[in-house]
């Protein structure tokens, strides 16, 4: 045989060996389960990891299933609480395949299984929620909140059914949120707005009141201040008036007769003004000279 022929035979042999190995062996990984079927009939369930042999396809075929936890969120559904309030409580479900054979027979694939578990969980959730009040979902009193109990109830309702029907173990059902339907959410938002605007109004009123108080106090203070000043002024004036009177009195008391004389003259000056018409006796002091006589002298 020539060299080329050798190489060709080796290549063909190698390819054949690889093909045969590929068709007659399979591996089970630690995180998966395998069911071997022979013409559609399950013959072996393999959950332990390792390399295994089989008849080539189409005699025997390998069905692999992920043995790990699968988490998914159940479809959103509105439910009613015991006190007849509508709530939306999204839950997630953690499950794994517990019985691969039953799983293969009853659902066969993960999307299918999710759909079935979803129905179970949603129905169980609505049942569980109907036994609790709204105040047990959300409350400022920590002891009132019963989310854990609700989760446990859902698991208790779902787990046996899921195991028996689908070969699925429910590891956990968890409540992710508590929400209200759109219309109720609107009302809550409105209520929050109203609550806030009450505070706004309160602050504004407080501001007005405080400002008015300060203004009034200021005005009062000013009035008092001015009145005090007025009082002082009056007092000062009165005192000086009195002083003046005293000074006058002291001075005039020294010669009252002369004071009267001077005062009379002053009064005379003041009383006779431009509109006064005087009828005078020609014999009086300066006029007696009008008669040409020397007069009897300036008496008085």
């Amino acid at each position, binding site marked *: 045989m020539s060299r080329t022929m050798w190489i060709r035979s080796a290549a063909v042999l190698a390819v054949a060996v690889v093909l045969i190995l590929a068709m007659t062996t399979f591996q089970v990984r630690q995180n998966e389960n395998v069911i071997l079927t022979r013409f559609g009939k399950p013959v072996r369930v393999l959950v332990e990891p390792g390399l295994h042999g089989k008849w080539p396809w189409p005699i025997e075929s390998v069905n692999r299933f992920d043995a790990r936890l699968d988490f998914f969120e159940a479809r959103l559904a509105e439910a009613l609480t015991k006190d007849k309030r509508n709530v939306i409580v999204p839950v997630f479900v953690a499950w794994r395949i517990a019985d691969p054979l039953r799983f293969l027979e009853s659902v066969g694939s993960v999307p299918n299984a999710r759909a079935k578990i979803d129905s179970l969980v949603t129905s169980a959730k609505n049942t569980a929620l109907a036994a609790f009040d709204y105040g047990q979902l959300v409350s400022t009193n920590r002891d009132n909140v019963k989310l854990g109990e609700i989760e446990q109830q859902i698991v208790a309702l779902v787990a046996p059914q899921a195991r028996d029907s689908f070969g699925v173990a429910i590891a956990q059902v968890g409540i992710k949120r508590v929400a209200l339907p759109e219309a109720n959410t609107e009302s809550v938002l409105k209520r929050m707005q109203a609550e806030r605007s009450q505070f706004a109004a309160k602050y504004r009123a407080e501001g007005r009141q405080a400002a008015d108080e300060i203004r009034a106090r200021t005005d009062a203070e000013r009035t008092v201040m001015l009145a005090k*000043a007025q009082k002082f002024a009056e007092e000062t004036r009165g005192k000086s008036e009195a002083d003046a009177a005293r000074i006058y009195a002291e001075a005039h008391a020294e010669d009252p007769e002369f004071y009267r004389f001077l005062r009379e003259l002053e009064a005379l000056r003041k009383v006779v003004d431009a509109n006064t018409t005087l009828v005078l006796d020609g014999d009086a002091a300066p006029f007696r000279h009008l008669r040409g006589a020397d007069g009897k002298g300036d008496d008085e």
Partner: protein
Amino acid sequence: MTSAEARQLRNASTAVAVVFALIVLAALGWPAVLAFAVWGLIVAAIHALYFQIQADDLRSLEARRRSGSSAWREEGDESEAMERYMALPRFRSFWQLLLLGGAAVLMGWLLWRAWRMPVAEASTASLQLGIVLSIAVAVLLSLLGRYAVVLGAKLETADLNGVAQLARFSFWVGGALAASLGILLYAQRDLRVVTGRTLVLITAALVLDALVRAMLRSYRPATARKASGPVGDSLLLALFLRRSNPWDEVSTRMEGALGVKLGDTWAFRFLRRAFAPLVLASLLLAWLATAATVVPVGHAGVRVERGRFVSPPVGPGWHWSAPWPFASIELVPTKRVDEILLGFERDTGQPILWAERHYEGEKNILVGDGDELLTIAVPVHYRIHDPLAYLMTTSDARATLQHLAYRELLRVTSARDSFAIMTDQRADVSATLRTGLQRAVDAHGLGLEIVWVGLRDIHPPVAVTPSFQDVISAEEERQTMIELARAYAARALPEAKQEAGRMRATAEAAGEERTLAASGEALRFRQLAGAQKAQPDVFRSRLRLEALEAALAGRRKIVVATDKPPRITMDARRKTEVGSDGEGEGDE
């Protein structure tokens, strides 16, 4: 070639394209159907057109030859017809390239889309139908290829080589489709995606091949350039579809296309002999290479020996294992810190302002006694802490963490008041969230470590935010009003004080003035009194007369200087009249 033959070939091509599209419909779904239909129809149309025109030319040539007209005229006509014959294929090959390229791009795009789509649940019947149709078309195409070869030999032309190659290529495509459908039906392995991508790659390679050849053609001598190559001819197809040694084929092809004799070079002879061993050796090497794994920095490698995860994981560096499929090393990025975000679906990258939408799909959470809503954005940083647990517990750790984190967030916030969460309980909320989430993760054994939990953004829902901001405004307004009143006080009080001061000063001054004036007058009086004591009569007379002067000067007066007093009538409105019966003088 006769027109009947040309029509036959054209009809066959069209039929092939249509049936081809039907198979793809069953196998790959709508986008791929469209792509392959477009491609098939374009190829069929081009070939139909090409054969039709060529056949017309030949027929007219034949007719003229038979009619036996004059020699010079015959020659002229023949050369004219030949010229047209030479020109037409070249023109068409340009359009062919353009259309093929466009079709390939379109097909590629559609197939990538199909690849991203979830695998539809194909029914058994449709799959079986698809397989039957695929095989039927493959056989049909194989026959077409043979027919083209025979026809080419009969016409003594190489023009049909390209058609033959395309037909044979399409035969393999049909076969591949049938095989992938069969595998899907009987072994539950979905190879449609792989098949689709391979077809895209091959088509792209064919288009590239044609383009390169069209470009290289311009470097050849004018005569060789004029004789255009057969439609659909391809170096690549020739390489894979001919039965002889592929390297010989490449050599002759290159010679034909480029005018280079590759067959004579040393390298080529070596390549030709070493081809098969080289291919085998490289395949073997590729398989052995699966035994070596480089674990990059920040990663851990988990040995998988016959399906079992082996503890402990290996660190970064070069590691050996048995070759695939007996063992492998899976890489897990243990040092990388990843982030999940709770409370919204997508970050728009806008500034985080309460009154404007900054995240898409923000979720409101109920707090207080279910009467209050808050929008919370919580980033959670985590890393893989135990790679084995990470690989064994769940298929999607990230989504799992997201679910668990939402649950913890609800637990932490549901029993708190919204203002407390927004203000003084922030630190407590994030710390509680972190420990709670770590506990939940450990309970499932996810092998993750929660590095950090933050409350990036807590605010009331966007719809309520204006009310919240209004409260702040109101508080500010309250302060403003008080400040304004204080300003009034600050202005009014000093003014009053000033006024009071002025009043006091004025009064004091006036009082002083009064007292001083009195003192002055008293002094003057004393002086006068003192002065009059010496000569009281003279003094008094002087004073009296001075007073009279002052009082009487310029006044109206009547001096009665007679002994017999006259009658005087006083009328305030009129001048005073003095009767003339008496003596006297009126002085006015």
